[in-house]
């Protein structure tokens, strides 16, 4: 890591040397990074589990309609807020990537330790949705454009559109068909049926439910565009939420 005193900070009063000062800055940077990462991991994880929940927990909930609609919208909240914080305060183009990485680390710990380690659900039933390339997209659109408005419009739309193609490389294998007792099932359905979940009956799945459709079997593009559109709106709201959260207020020393 490189650090400098180019902003003309007071060196030599508290520290014995410039090197000691720089070492302290770098060490504090690392501590900040770890703390920030842990805070984002915990808070985003709770938010995401509460709002995306079963759609992200189980393979047999990952349908073509509800899953690509709900999940990106829910994930956009923290991505926008984190971008607001990292970009406006530090000009760091890592906000969205950091939160989705933090979320996925938290999710993988949860899925491996709890779902597999404690309750023996196989990982192919409980792996989380992939989000990382969406984080790259949002961060780099913001970095290149330098505008949160452009990021909301272009980044938000891409955020929704990218979700399904990003996940398809893992999901495709589980959408192969099998015949079980004369019933046609995908492997995703079958995994959900085989590996008993006492509190998750089949009827709570929301697989392509809704109104009659006029796009034939092309469900995903419609869902993705809708998700992208809502993600734009969510971006506006949560960018400002992040801005408000990252405001620093100082107390005057006399007030302490």
């Amino acid at each position, binding site marked *: 890591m490189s*650090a400098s005193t180019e*902003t003309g900070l*007071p060196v030599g009063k*508290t520290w014995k040397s410039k090197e000691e000062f720089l070492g*302290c*800055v770098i*060490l*504090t940077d690392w*501590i*900040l*990074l*770890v703390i920030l990462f842990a805070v984002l991991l915990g808070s985003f994880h709770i938010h995401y589990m509460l709002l995306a929940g079963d759609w992200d927990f189980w393979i047999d909930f990952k*349908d073509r309609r509800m899953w690509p609609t709900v999940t990106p919208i829910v994930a956009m909240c923290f991505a926008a807020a984190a971008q607001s914080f990292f970009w406006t305060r530090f*000009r*760091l*183009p*890592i906000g969205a*990537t950091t939160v989705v*990485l933090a979320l996925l680390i938290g999710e993988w710990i949860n899925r491996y330790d709890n779902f597999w380690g404690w*309750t*023996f659900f*196989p*990982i*192919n039933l409980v*792996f989380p949705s*992939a989000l*990382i*390339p969406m984080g790259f997209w949002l961060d*780099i659109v913001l*970095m*290149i454009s330098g505008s949160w408005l452009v990021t909301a419009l272009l980044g938000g739309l891409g955020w929704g559109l990218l979700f399904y*193609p990003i996940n*398809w*490389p*893992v999901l*495709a*294998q589980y*959408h*192969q*068909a*099998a015949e*079980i*007792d004369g*019933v046609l099932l*995908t*492997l995703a*359905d*079958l995994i959900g*049926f*085989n*590996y*008993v979940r*006492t509190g998750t*009956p*089949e*009827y*709570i*799945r929301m*697989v392509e439910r809704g109104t009659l459709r006029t796009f034939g*079997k092309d469900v995903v593009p419609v869902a993705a565009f809708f998700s992208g559109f809502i993600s734009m709106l969510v971006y506006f709201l949560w960018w400002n939420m992040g801005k408000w959260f990252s405001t620093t207020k100082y107390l005057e020393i006399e007030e302490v």
Partner: protein
Amino acid sequence: MRSLNLQSMAKCATARVVRLWILGLAVAGALTTLPAATPAAAHGERSQQAFLRMRTLNWYDVKWSKTELNVNDEMELTGKVHVFSGWPQAVARPGESFLNVGEPGPVLIRKSAFVGEVPVPRTFSMDVGKDYEYKIVLKARRQGRYHVHVQINVKDGGPIVGPGQWITIKGDMKDFTNPVTLLEGSTIDLETYGITWTYIYHFFWMAAAAAWILYWFMTKGIIVRYWQVKAGKGAELIGQDEKRIGAITLAVVLLAVLVFYAAANREFPRTLPMQAGLLTGISPIDEPRSTVDVQFKGGSYTVPGRELRIRAKVTNNGKEPIRLGEFTSAGLRFLNPEVFTMRPDFPDYLLADRGLSVSDSNPIAPGETRDLEVIVQDARFDIERLSDLAYDTDSQFGGLLFFFSPSGERQKAEVGGPVIPKFQAGAAL
């Protein structure tokens, strides 16, 4: 002020503090991940209100084909369920139901499930007042001793748990396999299928994200950037070089997404959307109409004595004399020892083999109508928390009475209605 802040930060950032932080994180990590969790031994069936359990689904003829298995062995869980005519108004009707298993995680996997002759991997519909026969084929997966129940989940109603049996599984889960033949003919092991690729794909992207974050963090860190932005020099932090790096990264990321997507489509050219939908029209058990007619005439529940008294007018329309042998409700079986001379094979915690008696034990002759007082008394009534009937918002009980003829023919009759709680022992009906 700034100098004060920097001094405070310096104090916090000593190597000792960092070591303590790392130690704390390691201990927290170990505490939250390493200890083994105790397997669940029950599934909350007692926590449901008594009137709901008694008046929704009445389970009977429940059988577990084996109680000891090795990993990979299969067993059948079979039985019948009566959908109570007086289904409580407080619970949604079973128009959308799912045949399930109550067990602590998938220690046995469900290979197939049938209601009648119809396979039910999906949600199905049941009619109130009818009886259905079910069969679940289970395959042992994880070693241990587990309580395994039949269960039906009712949409907007919740899970209704049937009787449970302890099942012992020997062996090692590492040896478990779940072979499945795909429509295109190949056979896979669903237990492990696709997991390695899932790890590789996810961790590839996570590593890429970590590299991106560390790259930016290592260039100028956090604090220096903050100072520069604060000093109005934020624009200098993201120049043309940085934007070029970003554009190249984005191009590589999008290209990778495209390549992965195309590779998936090439490897799996024939995929289907997930299958879902309600199975309707499943036929109930085709059985002759019962020749016994039971009219409920009143009842009471004595709380201290754990005694349910049922007054009923019983008419025998059959050709043989009959005697009351069993009352079953909420998975519990109360037997009349004068009829059941041998103890049936059923979990002890649900079987009161001397829990039923009648005011007049003489057989009811064909064509005869008799007023009977049925006494159901056993500690299991209390242990299984059916005593709470006295405190429920709808103090109506429900269950099935089984009458037996000398030739062994069994007649089933539904019984249920309001009962008056008695809070003192010895109170008469």
